[in-house]
């Protein structure tokens, strides 16, 4: 459908956004707002916003798998867990410097991605969803039963990292850490989306057989997406571990995977702004409705239903054909 030339504010706004220059202005303003918010926000707001940036990273990571490559992954929390436990174990058990655990966390989540993705990505989507669901649960149950992961009570007393002599311990520190990570995640997602690899994901998502006939290694590019998504989760998990200073297996349940997936679908699969909006909606809605007490999750659910009914492709959908 061609955009109608009526006076709809939304339509006009979208057209205005089509210009690269205008987009840059909007981005700069938003970045500036995100940078100065901690100066005016109270601790509660800061905590909520930090959490929103944290989910932005996770959602952008899952978006590579679900949005770009079109693979339904119901066990994404597993990679987040692998990253968190890698950092947790290395810092508290072996006394490794936090910053050195990040490459280790990336490596471990990558290996986890290859182990689970290698054999399963040959499957078509429905089967893949079930297998990833199982994998997510396996990781959680392993974490609960191993000694090195602290069993059911998890790891506590994970040391806070220092950055050029400053100990990262206050809310404001972690706000900026997660903001920077989220910006990096956006940048990497954007560059990937507009590359040979990004196009390959889209070809495979649209028509696997035609993509294969064009010389694209279907399983190979899917694995690529899966492993990159896993790495995003691993990095986010690393920072999560030092922010919380304690992690337990119950952080990485199936519900967590679903929540992240919800952020991606709610905002709009495959669109970076959409995914950010989705991640914020995920974190902010329950907070906004806090006044309703125990009813707030119900209201959250109703809001989501309404969004899915009226905007089935997400709040910020992909470009229409």
């Amino acid at each position, binding site marked *: 459908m061609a955009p109608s030339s009526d006076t709809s504010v939304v339509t006009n706004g979208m057209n205005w956004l089509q210009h690269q220059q205008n987009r840059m202005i909007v981005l700069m303003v938003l970045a500036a707002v995100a940078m100065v918010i901690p100066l005016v926000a109270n601790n509660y707001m800061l905590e909520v916003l930090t959490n929103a940036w944290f989910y932005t990273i996770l959602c952008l990571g899952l978006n590579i798998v679900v949005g770009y490559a079109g693979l339904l992954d119901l066990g994404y929390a597993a990679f987040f867990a692998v990253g968190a436990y890698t950092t947790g174990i290395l810092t508290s058990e072996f006394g490794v410097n936090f910053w050195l655990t990040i490459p280790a966390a990336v490596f471990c989540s990558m290996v986890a991605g290859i182990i689970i993705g290698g054999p399963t990505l040959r499957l078509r989507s429905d089967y893949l969803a079930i297998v990833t669901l199982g994998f997510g649960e396996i990781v959680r149950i392993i974490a609960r039963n191993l000694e090195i992961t602290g069993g059911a009570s998890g790891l506590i007393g994970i040391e806070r990292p220092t950055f050029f002599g400053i100990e990262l311990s206050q809310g404001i520190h972690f706000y900026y850490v997660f903001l920077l990570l989220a910006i990096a995640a956006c940048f990497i997602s954007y*560059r*990937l989306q507009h*590359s*040979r690899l990004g196009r390959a994901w889209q*070809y495979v998502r649209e*028509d696997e*057989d035609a993509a*294969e006939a*064009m010389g694209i290694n279907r399983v190979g590019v899917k694995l690529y997406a899966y492993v990159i998504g896993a790495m995003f989760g691993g990095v986010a998990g690393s920072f999560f571990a030092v922010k919380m200073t304690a992690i337990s297996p119950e952080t990485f349940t199936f519900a967590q995977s679903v929540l992240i997936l919800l952020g991606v679908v709610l905002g709009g699969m495959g669109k970076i702004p959409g995914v950010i909006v989705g991640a914020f909606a995920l974190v902010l809605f329950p907070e906004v409705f806090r006044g309703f007490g125990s009813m707030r999750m119900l209201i959250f659910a109703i809001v989501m239903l309404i969004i899915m009914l009226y905007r089935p492709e997400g709040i910020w959908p992909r470009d229409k*054909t």
Partner: protein
Amino acid sequence: MALLEVQNLVLRFSGLEVIRELSFTVEQGSIASLIGPNGAGKTSLFNCLTGFYRPDAGQIHFNSHSILRKKPHKITQAGMARTFQNLRLFKSMTVMENVMSGMHCRTSAGALGAVFQTPAQRREEELIRRVSEECLAFVGLLEKKNLHAGNLPYGDQRRVEWARALATKPKLLLLDEPAAGLNHDEKQELIELILHIRNELGITILLIEHDMGLVMKVSEKITVIDYGKKIAEGTADEVQNNPKVIEAYLGSEDEEDLLWA
């Protein structure tokens, strides 16, 4: 020299023999056709050649190498490109993006190259665009490169498929019913395009087609199959006068007698 050589190929679908001991060759630089009544196994044969189906027996040699157990993308990389009987475009993507898919197997940039936009990656993107534009210009669609493929008229969508196949830089181009759904003028253009691809780009062509007029006009060699078996082979004149071919298409007089008895 034969570019493609198929020997005693057999394909079964749970007991049913779709292709039976089929052998034929396609010479380098020729335009060959494969014809036969509906259900004769033509598209199944294409799927065997391009790696989508695994034949149960027989040999397929392409450019003197066996491609029997290779994956479709490896076969494309080896230089065999195909179009589909029912258009299989990436509909929500632009014409240009569709054609760029063909260059995927001729390039190599990965995730790191994409994130850091290394000089090598940028040169490669440049190359992908240039080749894709050349292919689009070749089929006469350059001015429509930024439109969404799904919005084009049918004839243009066919051209996108050809451009996309050409962008894989094939040695052999397999066309599955290229004239299906085209009007008279478009068919004339198609004939020119097929000759053009062979004469100017030196690409060998094998096509499956129902439109006999088109087949007779462009083909240098025609292979006729029925029930998965080769029943005739030769030039247009030879095939047209072969009683077995006439029987396969029109039915034999004996059968007719039986029918009316």
